[in-house]
């Protein structure tokens, strides 16, 4: 009875704390600019099912995809056991789902086998990150300090949770063995471990089994509340992230409506520019800049995406600029976005934002609070290295679009600060003056046709007329 009450309180506290953290994250995401992502429910559902639930984009790389699949399926199936633990804890029952009979046997056996496979996969993950040299995408200036530690902590927690599961089952088996009773369920792994437990009294084993049970569920509840501080939050955020990802072709960049109005007004004097949006009391809203200087200038969907990022680095590993040694790393831009929004608005329980130095060509930052996303974290050199090739967008397993943030920040540099590289300014003025990005005379635009049929001595215009 006492256990039941303690468990109920623990559960309430854990979910309360989690809900409180989620509210703060929701507020962080909503500081972004409006973007209408409603409608197209069928297409969004299909995409979420394939990409998020079905992990279709993970399978571009088979080895990590299979390892990840084990941990993912393990997570999904073990949740059924967690459900049982919660019911048992609240109602003082023991293995309440055992009425399922053979299904329960299968469930427990699957659980144990998956848990063992998870341990293997986690060991492989750890090796890929920590052997020297590690897999290239687990390196880079953005993946040191906290992000690196965070990645390992997740792996250690998973090991501990799996061991707690085995410990609980093994002690339960031993207990039933000594009492001469049959334990519901099939436990292929724990059966092998029973012999390792010392011959103890029933009382001791009961304590051990309870200890394993409490350790397992407490660990899970702690892990739940660790998520909002961690890249591991992707296990939840990947789903809304994919749901709200863009549906248009990857080559289509967003249109800036306010500029459209200005250009229309220039070209057509009768065009009436729509009245700007106002506050509820009718006062004018603070003008929004062109492009993005800080996180609140990005669409909210980009901020949501930053929370679904698991820092896997597939984007960076295929980026042509990064591959050839340039400063740009698409992952860094996404991680910087999350760091910045948490620095400026609500911080999670554990908050260790990346601070860059010489390795990322950063001046030491003295005023952290006013160090905007642009320049405070992302340098123009990174932004100007992008070829807009969409390799990062294509490679992201959860449909994050780093390119969109890059373009928004380029817009700010060009339209608000006139801070484009000189050669690009020359290109702009060529387009303005000659209608072409090169310094050619517009009157030469049709010269190609003069040599079209040199042998025959007729030009295309002659042929047409």
């Amino acid at each position: 009875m006492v256990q039941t009450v303690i468990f109920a309180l623990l559960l309430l506290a854990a979910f309360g704390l989690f809900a409180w953290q989620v509210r703060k994250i929701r507020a962080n995401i909503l500081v972004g600019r409006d973007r209408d992502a409603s409608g197209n429910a069928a297409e969004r559902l299909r995409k979420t099912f394939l990409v998020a639930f079905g992990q279709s984009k993970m399978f571009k790389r088979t080895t990590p995809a299979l390892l990840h699949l084990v941990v993912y399926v393990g997570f999904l199936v073990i949740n059924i056991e967690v459900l049982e633990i919660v019911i048992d804890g609240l109602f003082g029952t023991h293995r309440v789902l055992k009425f399922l009979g053979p299904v329960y046997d299968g469930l427990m056996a699957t659980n144990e086998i998956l848990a063992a496979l998870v341990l293997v996969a986690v060991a492989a993950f750890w090796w890929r990150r920590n052997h020297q040299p590690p897999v290239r995408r687990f390196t880079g200036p953005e993946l040191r300090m906290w992000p690196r530690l965070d990645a390992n902590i997740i792996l250690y927690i998973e090991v501990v949770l799996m061991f707690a599961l085995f410990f609980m089952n093994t002690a339960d088996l031993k207990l039933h063995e000594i009492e001469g009773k049959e334990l519901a369920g099939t436990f292929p792994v724990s059966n092998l471990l029973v012999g390792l437990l010392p011959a103890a009294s029933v009382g001791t084993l009961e304590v051990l089994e309870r200890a394993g049970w409490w350790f397992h569920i407490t660990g899970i509840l702690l892990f739940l509340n660790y998520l909002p501080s961690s890249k591991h939050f992707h296990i939840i955020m990947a789903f809304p992230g994919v749901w709200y990802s863009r549906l248009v072709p990857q080559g289509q960049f967003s249109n800036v409506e306010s500029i459209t109005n200005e250009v229309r007004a220039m070209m057509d004097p009768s065009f009436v520019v729509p009245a700007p949006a106002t506050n509820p009391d009718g006062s004018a809203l603070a003008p929004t800049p062109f492009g993005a200087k800080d996180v609140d200038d990005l669409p909210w969907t980009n901020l949501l995406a930053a929370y679904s990022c698991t820092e896997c680095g597939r984007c960076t590993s295929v980026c042509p600029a990064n591959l050839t040694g340039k400063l740009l790393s698409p992952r860094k831009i996404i991680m910087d976005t999350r760091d910045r929004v948490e620095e400026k608005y609500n911080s999670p329980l554990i908050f260790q934002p990346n601070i860059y130095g010489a390795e990322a060509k950063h001046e030491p930052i003295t005023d952290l609070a006013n160090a905007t996303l642009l320049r405070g974290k992302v340098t123009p050199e990174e932004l100007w290295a992008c070829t807009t090739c969409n390799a990062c967008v294509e490679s992201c397993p959860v449909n994050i679009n780093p390119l969109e943030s890059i373009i928004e920040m380029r817009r700010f540099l060009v339209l608000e600060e006139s801070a484009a590289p000189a050669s690009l300014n020359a290109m702009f003025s060529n387009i303005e003056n000659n209608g072409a990005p090169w310094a050619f005379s517009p009157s030469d635009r049709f010269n190609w046709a003069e040599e079209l049929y040199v042998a025959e001595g007729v030009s295309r215009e002659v042929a047409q007329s």
Partner: protein
Amino acid sequence: MADLAAAGEAPEILFWVGCAGAFDDRYKRVTRAFVRILDHVGTKYAVLGLEESCTGDPAKRAGNEFLFQMQAMQNITTLNGYNIKKIVTACPHCFNTIKNEYPALGGNYEVIHHSTYLQQLIDEGKVGMTGGESFKGRRITFHDSCYLGRANNIYEAPRDVLAALDADLVEMKRSRANGLCCGAGGAQMWKEAEPGRKEINIERAEEALATLSGTAAALANLGGVETETAAPAAHDLQGSIIAVSCPFCMTMMSDGVKNKEQESRVQVFDLAELVASAEGINA
């Protein structure tokens, strides 16, 4: 186009030449090759000539949305003035911009990239790839343009065109959706690359050359890390071709091949040039 309109006629297609196709000496040859194909199959087409202006793609990718929209609106006014319905272009950047970004500004057209158009001509039997140069047995690798491939999911049309050449097609390891950019997109064409270890077009040219010479498997790090010096060649590079479908890829790949001092053995051609050559109508 102005002449046609004055005569009260409408073309089947408008061929959007693009700035590179109009001004770049190398790509002018592609423009002429494509026009010869159009003439050859008897398509009734028109060009805007002096009325064409930059689509605004480089301005938009560089963040100059204002300049982009000025260009776009000007072009849309011209195109709508002639009541254009169907546009074919040999430039993936023009293609992407007109197809995807002009609709929001009032320009709605059926836009086709010349690789798709050429594929249609081949499928319809209008181009038989006979009567000209034979590509049988020559090694060709196709370099995907980002703005055709990932940006618009066109991967098969250019490959179908090449397949009709009856040549020896080889794929680079990084191809289709995993294709590596030539390094020119996003307005990089008009600026020096940011500081780094290597130029992107060199990286890509090395991969293409290694693929053509049959040593790509020996490249240590393909699929994530830059390529390294190739192993002994299994194939003579002489007569090999890197096929492209974009004016900027053309420049970058040609420069990369020159950098590797292989320009006397490996040539870079656009799809339209290959088709025109096979058809015996290239200049």
